[in-house]
């Protein structure tokens, strides 16, 4: 039955995707490594080979590249640390809240919490800039009406971070909530029933049945939220413009500036490689840590 001709016609089905895959993923991947080994000025036609210089410049303290990268990394790391726990815990909390409601009205609340996710980052930024405006913004009007002072939401620390995190949680939390709702629905009902017979409290059931059962999904949400927060760009670019000073200038903003304002494509590509490497290491690390925790628990049981 199997013939060369049949294999060929089958291959034709894969070919269109394979072409796109090669042109827009494999090729840029290799090209990016190539660019990072060159002194690649965006507007100059000549790109001298410099070996690992673009990389070493990032690590030598005192160089402009080193400063941009470290400042960006520090700020991105802060955003990750502030936002990821909220994105995971609030996401799970919302999912449990929605699931505790009568079935008839669940759909409405699920959609309400998920709706902001559909909106683009520039609309999000316009809305929050306006709500957080120090004079006429809704937030400060509300604080004033309670007799409290206005807060410089976007121009002072730690408020700039608080604003960025609030806007991000509001915008994207629905995505994690949906994943958790599904995971919660997969928990076998008889586990809860058995625990109820033993007289287990709600908290006990959550700790010993819900959490262990949804653990794989939890790991997935932690890793994807970390990756998403690592890639943060639009919110600080549009809402705080990296300020106050450079304190919310995230790594991706530094890389984009290096590439398009300073036109140093080579060193920007090297920074992008390092950023990706850090992301991969963190993802694998999170996976291994949560996995080993799982094994320990099993051994103890």
């Amino acid at each position, binding site marked *: 039955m199997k013939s060369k001709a049949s294999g060929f016609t089958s291959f034709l089905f894969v070919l269109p995707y394979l072409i796109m*895959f090669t042109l827009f993923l494999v090729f*840029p991947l290799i090209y990016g490594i190539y660019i990072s080994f060159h002194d690649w000025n965006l507007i100059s036609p000549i790109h001298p080979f410099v070996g690992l210089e673009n990389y070493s410049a990032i690590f030598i303290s005192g160089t402009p590249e080193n400063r941009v990268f470290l400042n960006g990394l520090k700020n991105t790391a802060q955003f990750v640390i502030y936002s990821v726990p909220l994105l995971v815990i609030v996401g799970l909390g919302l999912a449990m809240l929605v699931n505790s409601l009568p079935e008839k009205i669940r759909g409405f609340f699920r959609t309400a919490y998920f709706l902001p996710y559909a909106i683009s980052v520039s609309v999000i930024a316009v809305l929050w800039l306006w709500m957080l405006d120090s004079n006429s913004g809704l937030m400060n009007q509300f604080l004033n009406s309670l007799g409290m002072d206005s807060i410089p939401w976007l121009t002072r620390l730690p408020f700039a971070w608080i604003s960025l995190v609030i806007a991000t949680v509001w915008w994207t939390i629905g995505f994690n909530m949906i994943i958790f709702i*599904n995971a919660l629905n997969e928990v076998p009902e008889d586990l809860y029933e058995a625990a109820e017979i033993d007289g287990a409290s709600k908290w006990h059931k959550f700790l010993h049945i819900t959490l262990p059962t949804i653990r794989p999904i939890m790991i997935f949400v932690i890793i994807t939220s970390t990756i998403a927060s690592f890639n943060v760009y639009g919110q600080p670019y549009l809402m705080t413009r990296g300020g106050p000073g450079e304190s919310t200038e995230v790594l991706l903003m530094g890389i984009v500036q290096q590439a398009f304002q300073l036109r140093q494509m080579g060193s920007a590509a090297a920074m992008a*490689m390092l950023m990706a490497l850090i992301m991969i290491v963190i993802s694998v690390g999170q996976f291994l840590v949560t996995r080993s925790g799982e094994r320990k628990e099993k051994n103890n049981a």
Partner: protein
Amino acid sequence: MRKSKIINIVFASILAILFLIPLVWMVSTSFKSDFEAIGGGTFFPQEFTFQNYISTLTSTSVPILRWLFNSLFVGFAGVAIVVVIDSMAAYALARLDVPFKKVLFPLFVSTLMIPWVITFLPLYQQFSNLGLLNTYAPLILPYSANAFGVFLLYQFFRSFPKELEEAARMDGANKWQIFMKVVIPSARPLIATLAIFTFMAIYNDFLWPLVTTSTPEMRTVTTGIAIMQQGSFVSSYGQLMALTTLATIPILIVFLIGQKWFIRGITQSGIK
């Protein structure tokens, strides 16, 4: 027991109001007069006006209709390409005698782990070399390399019943006819999932269209609004809100209609 249920509903309602306030405020302000929009104090417009929409739609410095057209065009074009090439590849890899398929599928799927930032700058350089910056090409083509759709559909085609294919083969249908007449119709819900995922990703993408477009008429809605907001082209809040409302309507419609499939895609991607 009943009491805790009521507390939950009240709490959920307060949260829902907090989640929706920014959006309701956006729409309500877009119908306010300038004076009322700036002054604040009122949540719903006292004096209902379409003026903000009229001046936004007729403004020459803010070509919102052109941006909407661009976003919808690249969104639909991207979806068309992704749906066609992904379903063909996924079906062939799952069910046909493709040479090297044991290598190709893991290769495709493994690229899902590659952070997107790696290809971002070289892709820009690539389109720049080809003289294709500020055209529709970079706004459509790169999205088609994503392996998510191949992965999603592959799993479905793996479990697709063989009997249906065989019955069609008995009737003398060739691979392509089987694919078009038997396989694709059965995969419709998943294709809808892939379509809405892709559309939302393209419509809402920000950094990539921001760097690859440079003239006002090539901007997408997302980048156009960002540029305009940064350059303060629009002075009145009412107009700004009319603009963001217009930008949000198409994606909100797509989202509300496709929510069911979108949710299914999210949960599928979580199962690994």
